């Protein structure tokens, strides 16, 4: 097969695929009969809408990002703390896990109106709902990492009479980092979903206006489909950026020692 691909090739292939996809999209739009073309706006129309609506979209992106990052950051802090507690005691773990599961299983559109009643529409409920959706993968993965420390290493620390806080900070925490980042990547993928869905249900245009979900609702309700597609594309970009940031962080923390970053040709 293809030997280790040169970086140029690596960038070239997706670009070609993308161009092909755009061509198909264009063709599909014009193949529809004129009355039905509104179903699939042409790429040009979407681009135009992106330009025409750049102000509300930019504001919406800012708002959604704020909510997503706030909820995400909160989820990281709370989940790491909770993971430490859960890793300490199997009893606590067994008692709490079903409830964490239940929270995760509750669909967002059901939680959204409840959140609005509790904290009000807007940034607070978006952050809260993003927190809820991002929290569980982080907690589960980090806890797993903290309890999965190599038994021999734990014995080693025991031999040197390490104190519990030393064991946590110098052994369990670094060992759990790869697991934490796995959870972080999952959370980063679904957090924007949470923020947008939250916004659709609980959003408000108060303050500087709603987020991307709220904009999507407006455009859909006004049948402004090119703008709706543009909003979808923007949300996608947001997800990409968040994911890239997390991948970058993971690389920084892990690349010098973790097996998953080993180059296949040493």
């Amino acid at each position, binding site marked *: 097969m293809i030997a280790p691909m040169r970086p140029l090739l690596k960038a070239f292939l997706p670009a070609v695929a993308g161009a092909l996809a755009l061509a198909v999209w264009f063709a599909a739009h014009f193949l529809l009969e004129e009355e039905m073309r509104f179903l699939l706006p042409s790429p040009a129309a979407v681009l135009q809408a992106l330009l025409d609506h750049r102000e509300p979209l930019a504001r919406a992106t800012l708002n959604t990002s704020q909510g997503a990052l706030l909820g995400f950051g909160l989820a990281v802090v709370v989940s790491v703390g909770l993971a430490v507690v859960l890793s300490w005691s199997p009893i606590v773990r067994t008692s709490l896990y079903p409830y964490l599961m239940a929270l995760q299983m509750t669909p967002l559109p059901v939680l959204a*109106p409840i959140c609005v009643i509790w904290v009000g529409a807007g940034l607070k409920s978006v952050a809260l709902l993003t927190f809820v959706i991002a929290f569980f993968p982080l907690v589960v993965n980090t806890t797993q990492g903290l309890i999965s420390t190599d038994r021999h290493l734990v014995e080693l620390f025991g031999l040197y009479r390490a104190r519990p806080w030393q064991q946590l900070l110098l052994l369990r925490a670094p060992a759990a980092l790869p697991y934490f980042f796995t959870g972080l990547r999952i959370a980063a993928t679904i957090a924007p979903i949470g923020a947008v869905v939250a916004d659709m*249900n609980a959003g*408000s245009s108060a303050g500087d206006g*709603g987020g991307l979900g709220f904009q999507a609702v407006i455009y859909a309700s006004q*049948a402004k489909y090119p703008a709706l597609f543009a909003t979808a594309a923007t949300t996608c970009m947001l997800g990409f950026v968040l994911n890239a940031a997390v991948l970058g962080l993971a690389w920084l923390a892990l690349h010098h020692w973790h097996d998953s970053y080993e180059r296949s040709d040493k």
Partner: protein
Amino acid sequence: MSAPTNRRPRAPWLPVLVAVALGAAPMPAAERPLFKITVQLDWMAEPEHGGFYQAAARGFFRDEGLDVILLPGGPGAHVMPSVATGKADVGQAGDIETLLKQAEGLPFVQFAAVFQDDPAGILVHADSSVQRFEDLQGRTIIARPGWAFLDFLKKKFGLQLNVVAQNFSSAAFLSNREALQQGYYIAEPYHIIKAGGKMPRFLSTWDAGFRGYAVLVTSRRFSRAHPERLRAFTRAYVRGWQEYLEGDPGPAHAAMKQANANNTDEFMAFSRKMIIDERLVVGRDATGGSARIGRLDPARFAAQITLLEELGLLPKGRVTAASTMTTDFLPE
């Protein structure tokens, strides 16, 4: 007409003989196969749909050779996409909302009026500080995001408005004396009083100059394919409204109760009375009357389009009265 069954008949020639006999004999009109028309309503069955339910319950549609299926709407109902994609043949909507969507390329034709004046507006508490439209400056309104009336208000009065998404319960409105909520004034006030509130005031769309119809829409494709059916449909619909408003609404109300268990006799009487008192179906101006039921006026459409263009809500020249509505299917 019944098709031959798949089971092996005792006398295989018998069904064939019956079919031929039936096919050959002339059938009374009522037994001819009915043409199916699906109607997507904009809300759950209520007196605003009086024309439909009376016509359906009293067999007016059937008399015209039509089998009309009424699909109730609700909070998630998507009348416009349903009709645009052909999932439903006919839909009920506001004419200005429809105009704006037609400007976006959606292939609708507006062909009959439901209300000469759409009773939409903003619910205001009796003792709220808001008295006029200008008082809405900087306020938050619970409404459907994208409601055209809000953009209209912003442009016309130079207002800054905030919107919070509707969740269609009275709770949010009742819990705050300064709350403002989108509503239909032939329905919401009743629910609010029933829930213990005082009769709310109403900032109606036509007081702001947003004089819209409530209309019936269909897709261009359907209107091209079945013009006679649409005429028959409109005939029966107008007949239904006439009887609902002037005669005994019992059959319609019975059907509405069946379609929506939340309908009480008291509510339906209240709503119907408002429709009659406010002359919503027959027209509030001097030329209003029974003959106006269902009629659309191209001049009024043209005026609406001009107004929207002036306010910058509609790109100039994108649509005209002729390109958006028709009187072809209205009774002579």
